[in-house]
Each structure stands twice: as structure tokens, then as C-alpha cells.
């Protein structure tokens, strides 16, 4: 095997992020300074983002570049990689204000965040079970630490315990599944999977792939593997919730799309009805649970369950994965979710016992912080999928996938779920403009940097909703 500089060039974003993590560690060991660590983190991620664009250059004719057997850098990897770094960059900004008032060590969280971002990057570009596994764990293990980071809050600790135990159990499922696939096929390369599956008959690999899918469903919080989601979202610091809801979900969808693209059509036919049921149950469960929820974080958690259900439609309707629909949907979902969690982050402080998570905190927000309230309104509209917001475009794509593949039952679930969703999103919006209610959070000033980023994201939401064509065309060139 010949390893040279050129071999590793496509890995520049990964290397840059890893280096940044080490740099932060060195900076901390010399002298603890929140500001320095923060800016190193920001600079590192910006450099990684720039390197992705420099490497990709919005190329029209992308060539898939393998780096050893483990990693395959192609348009898919670039797209999701850029999104992962973008999400973690935004989370960094949210974290700064949040962690500033936290009494304990502040700087470690940035290291954990950077390592999680590395994990995300590896995950989206892996083409081998080993890369898949190590990427997933790199993405999960730091997040255990981040969820429980504010362990002085008992809820944060509780969320950490829950996430650690259940996620580790899911990892065990993933590993066992991989072992079964390997046992039957003798390969862990995605590219060889289909051939070897056809060559070596038996049910072992199918069973193993199902176990892998179960682990993925857990991470994507799809029913019935979703129960952990609200507790973890609620207990985790708001910026970490943002990371969980976006970067983590993104990377896992990316690898799932790639993985499912390599299995035989026989197995796809087996998995499809199962996943269809999961999608429908997720949509129902997520929306039902969100209906009466008064805690914004939990509501977002439930809504993310439903959203992942919608997304699954793109993966299973028809004979092959509708990658374009999934990409469009994820893009819109990530931007919107980041803004939603950003609004919560902007009003939350690590030093307080709780985040600004009850809907009551937001009652009459419009009269205290009009910009944030308007932004949050638009975010809710986008989550509900109202036209001229990003959410509509995403949902429309899913809808088109359903129509073109005649998946009427899935479509019905999508429509009914969206109808239910409107109810609880609107309720939050009403609270924002409610002058009568007493507010519990009059004295919490919104963090300026976070608000600025939220507004930027909302502009993006509107732009994607009003003029999505450039983004859509870009996504169409990816595959």
C-alpha cells in the first residue's frame, strides 16, 4: 500500500479538525482561557469548511476519490461533510454564550465538539464497516460527555446516563449486525457487499443488516427506538441539543443512504415494508406526543421523531433511495432545527439550573426581543412546512417522491402528520405574541452573537423557501 501526501489530501477537513482539537488541548494545558479556545475552535472549523470548498470547488464532474479502503470522498461526502461542519460551527457559537456563565471548566466542551465533528466527517465519507463504526462512535462518545457536561444540573446528568446506556446498547446491536454480515460475506467493504451477498447465500447477512438498521433507527430516534429522545434533548444543554438534532442526524442519514445503496435489491425488498411501518409509526408517535407538550425542547424532540419519519419516506418509497429528496429535506431540516435550538440557546445560560425551555419562557417574547420572536415564528412555520419557508420545499420533495412512487399510505401519514404538526407549532407561535401571560424569563437578555446567527439562519430558511432553485440545482449535481 502506497500512502503519500496526495492520498490524504482529500482528508484535509478531517485532519484540520483533529489538529484543532489537539490545539485546543494544548492551549488549555498552557493556560485556560475561554476566549482563546473558542476562537481556535471557530478558526479550525472555518478552515475545514474552506478546505471542503477548495477541494470540491463546486465541481460539476466530481470524481469519487477513495482514501484507503475506508473512506470514499465523493459529492455525497462533500455535501454532508460541509453540512456537518456548518452545523458544528453554528453550535460552537451557541455554546460560547451558554458556557460563559458555567462555573466549571469551559474549554473541554470545544474539544468534544471538534472530535464529534471529526466523527461526523468520517461517518459521511466511510465506505467500509470499520469506518462506519469508528465514525459513529467518534460522533457518539464525545456527545455522551457533552450531554452530561453541565453535570451540576441533575437533569443533564440523567440525560447523560440515559444516552450512554441506550446508545451503547444500540452500538452493540450495530456491531453484532456487522459481525453477522461479515460472517456471511467475508467483506466489510460496502462496494463488495452486493456481489458477495449474491455469491454467499443465507439469511445471516440479512439479519445482520437488519440489526445495523435497528441501531441506525435508534440513533435517528425512529419509533419504537425513540423513547430516549425527549429526555436527552431536554436534559442536554441547548447547544448540545442542537448538535444532536442536526450534525448527528445528518451524518447518520448520510451513511444510511450510502449503506442502503449497496445492498441487493432482494434485501431492499425485505427491508422496505419494515421501514415503511417504522416511518408511519414514527410520524404518528412523534406528532401525538408533541401535541400537549409545553416544554419546547421536548416538543422539538418529538417533532424530530416525526421529521425523521417523513425523511424515511424518501429512503424507502420506490425501488431505490431517492437521494435528492433526502438531501433537500435534510438541508432544510438542519437549517431550521439549528435556528430553533439557537433561539433556545440564546436565552439559556449554563450557570442557571434550567434552560429557557418551557413555552412560558417565550410568552410575549415579541415585546421583549422582537427580532428573536419573529425569527422563531418563521422557524415554527418552516417546521410546519408552510409555503415560502424552507420546510415546505423539503416536505414538497418528500411528497413528490411519494406521488411518483405511488406510496399512498406513506403519503397519507405525511399529510395527517403535517396537519397534527400545525397545531403544536402554532401554539408556540401564539405564545410568542401573547401579551397577557406572565413571563418567567423577563430578566434573561438574549445573547447577541447567538441571535445574530439565528437571524442569519432564518434568512437562509426564507431564502431556501422563496428561491430554492440554486440549492436544488446544486444538490442535483451531487449524484
Amino acid at each position, binding site marked *: 500500500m502506497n500512502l503519500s501526501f496526495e492520498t490524504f489530501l482529500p482528508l484535509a477537513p478531517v485532519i484540520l479538525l483533529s489538529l484543532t482539537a489537539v490545539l485546543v488541548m494544548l492551549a488549555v494545558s498552557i493556560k485556560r482561557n475561554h476566549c482563546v479556545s473558542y476562537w481556535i475552535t471557530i478558526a479550525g472549523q472555518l478552515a475545514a469548511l474552506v478546505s471542503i470548498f477548495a477541494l470540491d470547488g463546486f465541481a460539476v464532474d466530481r470524481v469519487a476519490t477513495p482514501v484507503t479502503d475506508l473512506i470514499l470522498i465523493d459529492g455525497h461526502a462533500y455535501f454532508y461533510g460541509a453540512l456537518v461542519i456548518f452545523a458544528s460551527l453554528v453550535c460552537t457559537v451557541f455554546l460560547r454564550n451558554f458556557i460563559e456563565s458555567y462555573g466549571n471548566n469551559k474549554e473541554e466542551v470545544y474539544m468534544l465538539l471538534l472530535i464529534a465533528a471529526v466523527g461526523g466527517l468520517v461517518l459521511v465519507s466511510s465506505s467500509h464497516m470499520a469506518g462506519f463504526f469508528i465514525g459513529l462512535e467518534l460522533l457518539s462518545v464525545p456527545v455522551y460527555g457533552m450531554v452530561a457536561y453541565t453535570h451540576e444540573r441533575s437533569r443533564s446528568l440523567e440525560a447523560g446516563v440515559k444516552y450512554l446506556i441506550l446508545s451503547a446498547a444500540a452500538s452493540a446491536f450495530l456491531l453484532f449486525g456487522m459481525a453477522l454480515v461479515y460472517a456471511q460475506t467475508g467483506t466489510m467493504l460496502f462496494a463488495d457487499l452486493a456481489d458477495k451477498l449474491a455469491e454467499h447465500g443465507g439469511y*445471516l447477512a440479512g439479519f445482520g443488516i437488519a440489526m445495523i438498521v435497528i441501531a441506525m433507527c435508534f440513533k435517528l430516534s425512529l419509533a419504537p427506538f425513540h423513547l430516549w429522545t425527549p429526555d436527552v434533548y431536554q436534559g442536554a444543554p441547548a447547544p448540545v441539543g442542537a448538535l444532536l438534532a442536526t450534525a448527528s442526524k445528518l451524518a447518520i442519514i448520510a451513511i444510511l443512504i450510502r449503506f442502503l445503496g449497496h445492498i441487493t435489491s432482494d434485501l431492499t425488498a425485505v427491508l422496505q415494508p419494515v421501514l415503511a411501518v417504522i416511518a408511519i409509526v414514527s410520524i404518528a408517535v412523534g406528532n401525538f406526543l408533541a401535541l400537549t407538550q409545553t416544554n419546547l425542547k421536548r416538543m422539538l424532540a418529538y417533532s424530530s421523531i416525526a421529521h425523521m419519519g417523513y425523511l424515511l419516506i424518501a429512503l424507502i418509497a420506490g425501488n431505490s433511495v431517492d437521494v435528492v429528496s433526502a438531501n433537500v429535506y435534510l438541508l432544510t431540516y438542519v437549517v431550521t432545527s439549528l435556528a430553533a435550538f439557537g433561539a433556545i440557546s440564546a436565552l439559556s445560560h449554563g450557570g442557571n439550573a434550567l434552560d429557557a425551555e418551557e413555552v412560558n419562557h417565550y410568552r410575549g417574547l415579541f415585546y421583549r426581543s422582537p427580532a428573536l420572536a419573529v425569527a422563531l415564528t418563521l422557524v415554527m412555520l418552516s417546521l410546519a412546512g408552510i409555503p415560502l419557508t424552507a420546510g415546505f420545499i423539503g416536505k414538497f420533495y418528500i411528497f413528490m417522491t411519494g406521488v411518483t412512487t405511488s406510496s399512498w399510505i406513506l403519503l397519507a401519514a405525511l399529510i395527517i402528520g403535517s396537519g397534527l404538526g400545525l397545531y403544536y407549532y402554532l401554539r408556540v407561535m401564539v405564545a410568542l405574541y401573547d401579551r397577557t401571560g406572565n413571563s418567567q424569563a423577563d430578566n434573561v437578555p438574549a445573547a447577541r452573537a447567538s441571535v445574530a446567527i439565528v437571524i442569519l439562519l432564518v434568512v437562509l430558511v426564507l431564502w431556501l423557501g422563496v428561491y430554492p432553485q440554486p440549492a436544488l440545482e446544486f444538490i442535483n449535481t451531487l449524484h
Partner: protein
Amino acid sequence: MEIAFYIASAIAIYATLRVVTNTNPVHALLSLIVSLLAVAAIFFMLGAPFAGALEIIVYAGAIMVLFVFVVMMLNIGPAVAMQERAWLTPKTWVVPAILAAVLLAEMLYLLRDGTWNQAGHTLVDAKQVGISLFGPYLLVVELASLLLLAALVAAYHLGKRDDQNG
């Protein structure tokens, strides 16, 4: 000589059963170590001596010792064993046991169906594993170091007492 494999398997399963059902943390840990050693024996039999050695050194050695340390730090007395016994009522066992039994049945059905494939026919020694690790799997090794770094940082932060600073 296949009998050795079955014996080791039986020991592993029995020891694991003891881990799951035991009420005393230290006893459970010891059972777990026994189970790990039995599994290590299976590794050796299947021609994976390097993995077997690591299983003993790292798993049974390092990780389990970590557990033992924590058990000692917490200084858990006999009250815990009493408590555990009270928790482990048949009622709590029924549903999980049925679920696990069904899962196991599914797995065993899967394994029964089909032809036997021989395992343990080739010795894969440390050298081959090493070449593999630092050849095609080089990236994974590097990334594993990041994983450990993350765990280190997280454990350092989470394990800190509230009254400690810096």
C-alpha cells in the same frame, strides 16, 4: 478436541448468567472476568491468539480493574446486595426474559438453517494483524486514538467533584 470449545462456551455462558443475576457487585465482576477469560480461550482455539491475549490483558485486566476500582471507591456494603435482591423479583424478569428468548430463538433459527461453515482453520497471528492495522486500517487506528482522547476528556470533566476547580 472440539469438546474444549464447548466447555469454554459453557463456562462463558454460565459465568455471564452469573453476572446478570448476581446481587453482589464484586462477585459479579469476578464472574465477568471468568467469562472474559473463557471467551479469550475461544479466541485462542479459533486461531486468533493476538485477540485472545488482548482480551485477557486489556479487557479482563484493565477495563475490569477499572470497574473494581470504582466499586471500591463507592465502598458499597452488604446493604446493596440486599437491595439488589429486593429488586430482582420474578416480575421484573418475565418480560425481558421472554423478549430475549424470542430474540435468541430468532437467532438460533437463523443459524440452524443452512450449511455449516468451518471456522478456526487458519491461524491469523499478531504479525498479520499488525500488517493489517498499519496498512489498510491505518486511518482507523488514528481515529481510535481520537476516540480515546474524547473519552479521556469527557471522563476527566465528568468525574470531577463540584468543589474542585481548575
